[in-house]
């Protein structure tokens, strides 16, 4: 009986090796979003401390919209911010923000300092809505079509290149579909 135990490490190793062999075929940089082409999760968030424009999923449906998950503690968000300001100034799209895991007041102070591109901002202090969105880190950005389905997910900051090459054409196509 105890002899059989000696085979246990080998058995474990064979299982692990098989697992690695399968895992090796997966592309590590691929981060699929199960939410693509799915309806926006229903949520209703209060306004952040110092603002009075709360955000709920109902506000978004009916037009092409951008939902940006951000936080003042997030350094890449600050890098992304000027691009969002530019989009807000130049493009015709509803820009909404989910202020993620923020202490009261910090989000508004940050926006006062850097400028505010958001038409609506929800306060997701406990991160519940971010979980529904499958957010892995800030910033993340979702493009929602007029029927309220998520069509695109951007992980990490939106740069000028990403906006021009990927997001802007998609937004224009979605707006054309919706007849906006």
């Amino acid at each position, binding site marked *: 009986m*105890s*002899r059989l135990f*000696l*085979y246990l*490490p*080998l058995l474990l*190793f*064979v299982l692990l*090796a098989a*697992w*690695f*062999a*399968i*895992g*090796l*075929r*997966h592309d*590590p*940089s*691929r*981060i*699929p979003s*199960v939410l693509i082409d799915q309806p926006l999760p229903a949520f209703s968030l209060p306004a952040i401390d110092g603002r009075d424009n709360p955000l709920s999923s109902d506000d978004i449906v009916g037009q092409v919209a951008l939902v940006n998950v951000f936080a003042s*503690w997030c*350094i890449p968000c*600050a*890098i992304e911010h*000027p691009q969002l300001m530019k989009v807000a100034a130049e493009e015709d799209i509803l820009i909404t923000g989910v202020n993620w895991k923020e202490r009261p007041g910090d989000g508004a102070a940050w926006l006062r*300092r*850097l400028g505010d591109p958001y038409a609506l901002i929800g306060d997701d202090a406990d991160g519940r809505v971010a979980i529904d969105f499958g957010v*892995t880190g800030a910033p993340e950005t979702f493009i929602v079509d007029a029927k309220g389905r998520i069509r695109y997910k951007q992980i990490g900051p939106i740069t000028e290149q990403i906006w021009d090459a990927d997001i802007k054409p998609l937004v224009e196509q979605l707006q054309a579909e919706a007849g906006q």
Partner: protein
Amino acid sequence: MIAELGNFALIAALMAALWQAVFPLIGAVRQDHAVGAGSTNSALAQLALIAFAFGCLTIVFAQSDFSVVNVVQNSHSAKPFIYKLTGVWGNHEGSMLLWVLILAAFGAAVAMTRDGSLKFITLAAQGAIAAAFIAFVLFTSNPFERMLPAAADGMDLNPLLQDPGLIIHPPFLYLGYVGYSVTFAFAIAGLIRGRIDAEWARAVRPFALAAWIFLTIGIAIGSWWAYYELGWGGFWAWDPVENASFMPWLAGTAFLHSVRVVEKRGALKVWTVLLAILAFSLSLVGTFLVRSGILTSVHAFAVDPERGLFILGILALAIGGALTLFAVRAGKLQAEGAFQPASREGALIVNNVLLVTMTATVFIGTFYPLFVDVLTGERLTVGAPYFNAVFAPLTILLLFAMAPGAVLAWKKGRLGDAFKQATPAAGAAIVVIIIALWMTWPKSAAAACAAGLAVWAGGGALIEFARRIKLFSAPRGSLAHIVGLPRSFIGMTIAHVGIAIVVVGAMGAGVWRTESVRLMNIGDVISVSGYEATLSSVNELQGPNFVSETAIFTLARNGRQLAPIVAERRYYPVRQMQTTEAAIRTTLFGDFYLSVGERQTNAGWAVKAWYNPLVFWLWFGAGLLAMGGLVAALPAPVRKRSSADATEGVPA
């Protein structure tokens, strides 16, 4: 021409390794020392050939020969000369060449030991591993590959890697990883011969210690590098690649403890052999992790599944083969002595169970994302909260067991006596807990308790040390007693104190740190824990292959003016990458650490400042660990050696 010479030398080295893998076995089977001794020469030849190939690659880098693909991809004519040289191993191909070079060096070290069938079979196993890895370099990662026509200039080395820390960090890690190939080879030899005994333990222990020392230093330097270079103020992130180096360290630490039981008591043989296989397997998995991109991480500088498959093949052969041998042969190993739970060997089993459980938790945390990905296609990451949550209780148990473990006698100890003997350590621990609570409140009370336990663990080792040198009963003779103590015991004491200091440092830098963030313009002040840094100027400077934005801060502590500190952000145009050079003021009790971020339009620079208490203790403790290992590895005084050899001859 030089690149071709290197290539040929590597092919010849492959031949030497294959020779080494086969002939010693024949020598061992025929009991023919002459055939076996040939393996000594092939091991030495292999080292010479690979060293020559490595020299060729270094010359190619030094000359900036841009007809060699590897140089083009990883060097640049404007790069400082020292980084041209260290760039040799700052890339996948070159680092694999360094890997096989170290492997050959360890093989040669084994070849220099006393002849015998244990050595010959060990060399054969070592040769087989070497052949597999040299083939890997030659067929999938050849650093000597040419490109014609030659490129005009290179693509530069990843700027994060252009740093003094990188010059020494990977070689030390590799020395550690590869060092475990020797314990692995000894385990194979022991299984084939069906003898794991005191002779085996004494032969393998210096190599296990060497690998462990190098790995300890390598991990410490890596952590130090991350601390000062990455600019996030932390020293350990449970990144997959960090875990990859930590797992063999944990398994290797367990091995160092259990091999003592084999040597002293002739027990735990099966387990010790398994640990030897495990330590090297985890080292291979470490390589595999980094090289294949199976898990993404900032460290993965060679993301390529083809290579991953090759490594998977080597892994399957080496680990699968060793475990098959283990399954078939380990049953033949007989324990020699009876076992008392309350004894040194009992304490070492507790140590082993805890260390292996730690290894398993790190393994599960590291690979859990992969398992989930394979099962459900979902991508997720396991972060520091998991590791801290499962690792902390295990560390606490380990620290708790360390004091009685160090005090207990071999064969038959009394647990009650052990605890009684360690009472002063308990007193010191309680004092430390109270002081820590008082100083750090309202931060985590658990951290204060962990620091207290560290004092308990280190204190236990020191109490036993004091007892052995009769510090209190006959203090006059104490110095003379130190000389007479076994080296392994002195080393153990130093290492246990080292671990205690590392734990205190980790609590300080990990839990008790304070931080402050603000946007700063010239003249603004950022303050944290009594330090006040005033931004006095920001200048643009031109480096050899980077542009730097240098921020100078005047620094004061509790109103007293200190020397100014300098933080930098560098931009490397060829790679379009930025690096941070944090400003750090180190004292024995804590670091003031400041890093400067991007300039926000009009608002100034984003500046983050930390006070990291006791962070220096991390590196100091790690240094003590390595020193403890070194002392334990030193040969015993001649007088002792001869008496040990005399008892060795008695059959078990």
